[in-house]
C-alpha cells in the first residue's frame, strides 16, 4: 500500500508527462480527465453554439430547459440515448455498426498527445504531430463506411464528398504544418522536432509564436491551416458533406439516436483537436501572452490571476441574469438554479486563486482559452458564410491552398537557411 502511494507521489515530484515517466496510474488519471473534460467541452460547446448562433441571428436559442437553456444539451443527450436505434433493412449491419465507433475513436485518440501544459499531456511522442494528423485522418474511413453501409444515395454522395474533401485538404494542411515544423529547427543543433511539447518549447526558446515568425510567412501558413482545418472537420462554409439543403444530412442521414450522437461527439472533438493543433503550432500552446516582453514576478502574478477572474466574470454574468429573471413564482426554481450555477462558478473561480492551484492550472487555462477562441470562430463562420459548392471547394483546396502551402514552405526554408545561404554565396 505504501509502495503504491509512493508510486503515485513519485510522479508529482517528477517534471514529465505520465507517458514519459512511465507511470501507468497517472496516465490513466490523465486519460480519464481528458475524456471527461472533452465530454464536458462538447456539451458546453453544443449549448454555446446554439446560444451564440442564436444571438447572432436575432433570436434567443434554447430557453426552456433550465435557466437560459443550460440543461438543454443534457436533455438532448438523454433523448438521443433512449431513442430507438434504427438500422436500415438493406444496410450492411457490421459496417454500419462499426463506422461511428471508428470516427469517435479517431477523434478521441488524438488527444493522447495534445499538450495542455509542459507536463499536462498524457504522453509526449517523438512523432506527436504526425500521430495527430494520421489518427485524425482515420476518421475519413469511418465516414466513408457510414455512407456506404447505409445503402442509400444521399449518404453515399455525402461520404464520397466528405472523403474527397478531407483527403484533399489534408495535403494543404500537411504543408502548412511542415512549414511550422521547419521553424522549430532554428536552434543551435539545427534539428527540429515533431513532438507537440517540443514545438511549444521551441516557440518559448525562440521567444516568438510561430504565427509571427518570418512575418508574414508564419501568418500565411497559419491561414492555410485555419482554412484547411475547417474543411477537415466538415464545418461551415465547407460543410458540404452534411449540406442540409442538398443532401439532407450527408453521410449520417440514416443514423439516429445514440449512433448519431457519436458522430456529433466526434465532430465536436475533432474541431477541438484540430484547434489544439493550430494553437500548439502557431499560437504558442500553453504559453501565456507576451512571455518575453511582460516578464517579472508582477506580470507572472497578473497573468496567473486570469483563470480565477474568468470564472468570476462568468459567475457575475450568471448573477446578472439571475437578477433579470422574471419574478413570477413559476420561475423560482430556474432562478435558484441559475444562482446556484453562478455560485458554483464563483467557487471554482475562488479556488483558482489559491497559489498552488493557480500555478498548476495556468498553462491549461491559456491553452483552453486559445482553443475556445477557435471554437468561437467556428460558430462565427457558421453564422456568416454561405456554403461552397463542391467543385469550388476542390478548387480552393488544390489550386489556391496547395500552391500557397508549397510557396510558404519553400520560402520558410529559404529564410530559415538564409544565414547559411549568404555565407556560401558571399563568403565561399
Amino acid at each position, binding site marked *: 500500500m505504501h509502495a503504491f502511494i509512493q508510486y503515485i507521489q513519485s510522479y508529482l515530484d517528477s517534471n514529465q508527462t505520465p507517458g514519459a515517466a512511465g507511470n501507468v496510474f497517472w496516465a490513466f488519471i490523465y486519460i480519464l480527465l481528458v475524456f471527461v473534460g472533452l465530454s464536458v467541452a462538447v456539451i458546453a460547446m453544443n449549448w454555446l453554439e446554439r446560444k451564440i448562433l442564436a444571438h447572432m441571428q436575432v433570436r434567443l436559442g434554447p430557453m426552456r430547459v433550465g435557466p437560459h437553456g443550460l440543461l438543454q444539451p443534457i436533455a438532448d443527450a438523454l433523448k438521443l440515448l433512449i431513442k430507438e436505434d434504427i438500422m436500415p433493412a438493406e444496410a450492411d449491419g457490421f459496417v454500419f455498426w462499426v463506422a461511428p465507433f471508428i470516427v469517435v475513436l479517431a477523434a478521441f485518440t488524438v488527444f493522447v498527445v495534445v499538450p495542455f501544459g509542459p507536463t499536462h499531456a498524457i504522453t509526449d511522442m517523438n*512523432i506527436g504531430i504526425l500521430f495527430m494528423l*494520421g489518427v485524425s485522418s482515420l476518421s475519413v*474511413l469511418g465516414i466513408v463506411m457510414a455512407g*456506404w453501409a447505409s445503402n442509400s444515395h444521399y449518404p453515399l454522395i455525402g461520404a464520397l464528398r466528405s472523403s474527397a474533401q478531407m*483527403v484533399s485538404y489534408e495535403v494543404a494542411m500537411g504543408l502548412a504544418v511542415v512549414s511550422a515544423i521547419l521553424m522549430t529547427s532554428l536552434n543551435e543543433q539545427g*534539428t527540429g522536432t515533431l513532438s507537440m511539447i517540443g514545438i511549444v518549447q521551441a516557440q518559448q526558446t525562440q521567444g516568438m509564436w510561430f504565427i509571427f515568425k518570418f512575418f508574414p510567412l508564419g501568418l500565411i501558413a497559419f491561414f492555410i491551416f485555419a482554412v484547411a482545418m475547417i474543411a477537415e472537420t466538415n464545418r461551415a462554409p465547407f460543410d458540404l458533406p452534411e449540406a442540409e439543403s442538398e443532401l439532407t444530412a450527408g453521410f449520417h442521414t440514416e443514423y439516429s439516436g445514440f449512433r448519431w450522437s457519436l458522430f456529433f461527439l466526434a465532430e465536436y472533438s475533432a474541431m477541438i483537436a484540430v484547434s489544439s493543433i493550430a494553437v500548439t503550432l502557431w499560437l504558442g500552446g500553453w504559453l501565456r501572452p507576451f512571455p518575453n516582453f511582460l516578464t517579472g514576478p508582477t506580470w507572472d502574478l497578473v497573468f496567473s490571476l486570469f483563470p480565477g477572474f474568468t470564472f468570476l466574470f462568468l459567475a457575475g454574468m450568471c448573477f446578472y441574469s439571475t437578477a433579470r429573471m422574471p419574478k413570477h413564482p413559476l420561475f423560482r426554481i430556474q432562478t435558484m438554479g441559475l444562482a446556484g450555477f453562478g455560485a458554483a462558478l464563483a467557487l471554482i473561480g475562488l479556488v483558482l486563486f489559491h497559489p498552488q492551484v493557480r500555478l498548476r492550472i495556468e498553462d491549461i487555462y491559456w491553452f483552453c482559452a486559445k482553443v475556445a477562441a477557435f471554437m468561437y470562430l467556428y460558430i462565427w463562420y457558421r453564422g456568416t458564410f454561405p456554403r461552397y459548392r463542391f467543385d469550388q471547394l476542390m478548387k480552393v483546396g488544390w489550386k489556391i491552398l496547395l500552391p500557397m502551402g508549397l510557396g510558404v514552405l519553400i520560402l520558410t526554408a529559404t529564410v530559415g537557411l538564409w544565414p547559411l545561404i549568404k555565407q556560401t554565396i558571399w563568403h565561399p
Partner: protein
Amino acid sequence: MAPVATPFFFYLLSGTMLIGGILVITRKNAVHSALALIVTLLAQAAIYLMLYAPFVAGVQIILYAGGIMVLFLFVIMLVSIERTMKERQFNKQWLVGIAAAGALGGLFMAVYTKGKGIFPEHALPTAEAQNTQAVGSLLYGQYMFAFEIASLLLLVAIIGAVVMAKKRI
C-alpha cells in the same frame, strides 16, 4: 521509457494482423476486406512502435490507413460490387495457388529453422528520441538520390492514374 509487457503485445498484435490478413483474402465483400486490411495495417503500425520505429509507424498510419485505404474504399464504391459478390470468389487455379503458397511456406520454415542462430542477440538501444531526425538525415543525406527517384515515381504514378481513370484524353 521501459517497454511494457512486450511478449503480450507482440502476440496480441501479430494475432490481430494474421486474423486480419486471413479475413482480407477470404471475405466476399470487398469493403469488409478493406476493413480487415485497415485493422492489419494499424496493428502493424503498433508493431513498428514496438520496434522503436515511430516515424515509420506514423507514415504507415497517415499514408496507408489514411490515404491508400481511402482510395481503395473510394474505388470499391465506384465499381458496383453487388454482382461480383454473387459470383464465384476464387479462380480456377486456386488449388495450384495454394499449393504454390504452401511450398513457399515450407521453404520459409526450412530457412528459418536452419538459420535460427544467424541473428545473435545484441544489447539493443532503447532510445527513440532522435529517430525522426536520424531517419530524416538519412533520407536527405545518403538516400537523396533514391528520394528524388521516389518523387519521380510518384509523379509518374499521378499521371498514370489520371490517364487511366480519365474518360477521354
